[in-house]
């Protein structure tokens, strides 16, 4: 398709991003405020020769997407907090079986049923640590309708490249707001497909990694036979209770992500060059922060922003460098403080100031401006 401009919702931009990225399987269950993704996919998937399947719950939705992924199809699911909680079991399975899959969480108020139609950023830690055991995932945080498209494309690319589940973590405002979306010409999109084995089938070891720590992935119905299990397994895929194999596998599953942070991490530095106060933000609060920064600069305060377009893996080095550059860091989040703790872990001893807002309306620009002034006077 040639380049198009539409005025649309973040949820729909996400769905279109997935389709442009080559997604041809969507498994889902209706949930506010992510339902529009499912509704859009129900119409669009058949048009592009893909499948939209509505399941009995979110557990089946994500698990079926893993199956579709192994059958050779780029697959996704989309949900909100309550559904994300149910999906955590298969997030672990995807990590362990190294299955590419994209999980979209349009974050609403929690805990439990919370505020379905109101936004929050309360699931950022859940995305990283929600399933049991030690592992790494990738988490991207769009702040506009265009980024809902762009980062969903990126989510598929990263998922295919590293065979790891990738979360798109958008707050409800981003999911439900409408803005102009430019869908690029398909030939201008850079798409990544998973690495496939080239060795003779008799020599194929399904979980033997390449130099990049990512094993080539055979597909079902090909000449390659394999066993994929959620149990700790050796390079053949066979279960084992050996300590050595467990350590090697768990280390590699983390390292294959952490070794490539230079490729994965995505941040935007806004007016940071001369800043002595920095805001670290993502999603809708970063938009409030941008306005507050303009207003503060008009009053002569040197403030800037590190905007996180990816939160997992956490940009440890960048935040640590920021800590040594500025006098103060302010972290406004639509929660009780999550990324704040990560910033504190890596930017200390620079004072870090948390602005909590566990509610649907993000921090207003004026509220952040007041905080900037307060911190500036310290």
């Amino acid at each position: 398709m040639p380049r198009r401009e539409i005025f649309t919702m973040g949820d729909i931009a996400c769905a279109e991003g997935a389709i442009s990225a080559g997604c041809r399987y969507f498994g889902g269950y209706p949930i506010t405020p992510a339902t529009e993704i499912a509704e859009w996919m129900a119409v669009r998937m058949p048009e592009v020769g893909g499948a939209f399947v509505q399941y009995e719950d979110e557990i089946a939705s994500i698990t079926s997407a893993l199956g579709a992924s192994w059958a050779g199809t780029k697959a996704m699911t989309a949900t909100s907090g309550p559904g994300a909680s149910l999906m955590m079991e298969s997030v672990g399975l995807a990590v362990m079986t190294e299955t590419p899959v994209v999980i979209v969480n349009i974050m609403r108020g929690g805990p439990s049923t919370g505020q379905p139609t109101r936004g929050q950023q309360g699931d950022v830690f859940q995305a990283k640590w929600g399933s049991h055991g030690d592992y790494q995932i990738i988490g991207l945080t769009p702040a506009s309708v265009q980024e809902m498209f762009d980062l969903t494309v990126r989510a598929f690319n990263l998922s295919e490249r590293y065979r790891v589940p990738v979360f798109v973590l958008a707050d409800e405002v981003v999911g439900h707001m409408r803005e102009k979306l430019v869908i690029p010409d398909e030939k201008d999109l850079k798409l990544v497909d998973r690495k496939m084995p080239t060795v003779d089938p008799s020599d194929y070891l399904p979980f033997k990694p390449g130099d990049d720590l990512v094993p080539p992935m055979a597909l079902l119905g090909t000449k390659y036979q394999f066993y994929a299990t959620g149990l700790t397994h050796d390079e053949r895929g066979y279960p084992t209770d050996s300590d050595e194999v467990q350590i090697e596998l768990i280390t590699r599953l983390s390292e294959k992500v952490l070794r490539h942070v230079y490729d994965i991490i995505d941040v935007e530095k806004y007016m940071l060059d001369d800043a002595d106060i920095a805001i670290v933000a993502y999603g809708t609060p970063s938009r409030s922060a941008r306005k507050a920064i303009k207003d503060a600069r008009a009053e002569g305060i040197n403030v800037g922003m590190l905007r996180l377009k990816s939160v997992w893996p956490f940009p440890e080095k960048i935040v640590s460098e920021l800590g040594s550059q500025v006098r103060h860091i302010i972290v406004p989040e639509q929660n009780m403080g999550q990324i704040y703790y990560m910033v504190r872990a890596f930017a200390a001893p620079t004072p870090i100031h948390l602005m909590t807002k566990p509610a649907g309306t993000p921090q207003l620009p004026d509220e952040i401006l007041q905080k900037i002034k307060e911190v500036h006077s310290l």
Partner: protein
Amino acid sequence: MSRYEIRIGGFGGQGIVTMAVVIGESSSLFDKKYVVQTQSYGPEARGGASKSEIVISDEEIDYPKVIAPDVFIAMSRAAYLEYVHGLKENGVLIIDSDLVNVESELPQGVRVYRVPATRIADQEVRSKQTTNVVMMGAFAAITKAISIDGLRHQMEERWPKFVKINHLALELGIKAGEKALAGES
């Protein structure tokens, strides 16, 4: 145009969100402005409170929601009572005059325009569903914040089967807007 904020309040079923979407589409795709449209709604599909917002600007829009609207279109008494005090000083208040009365004091300098959009849709267009189109016409005529050509174009794109009736509703809305403008209170 620097940041220009529009808030529309009413109840579910009046087309409050659709109205904002069409204004947003028209302003973004036809008038080539930066636009963000948002909404909030309750669990009720019909009858509950409904609010939608549009921010229009010549520059990239940072904070996406309305802070203090330049224009407030009130299409229910409940919405009027809830949001009227948020209106900017010297702002514009457009009310569906059969559904909303000006009660209590308004922020300083607010200009009030009365448009019987529901009645026009019901009695003149003979389709209550076009209430929001009538109001869009009135809004464009009163504020000049969006182009009427853009609205017309966008409605044709969006509802190709209802071009005629929507054009009628839009024209009547524009007329009602002009009339309200002339008799400004």
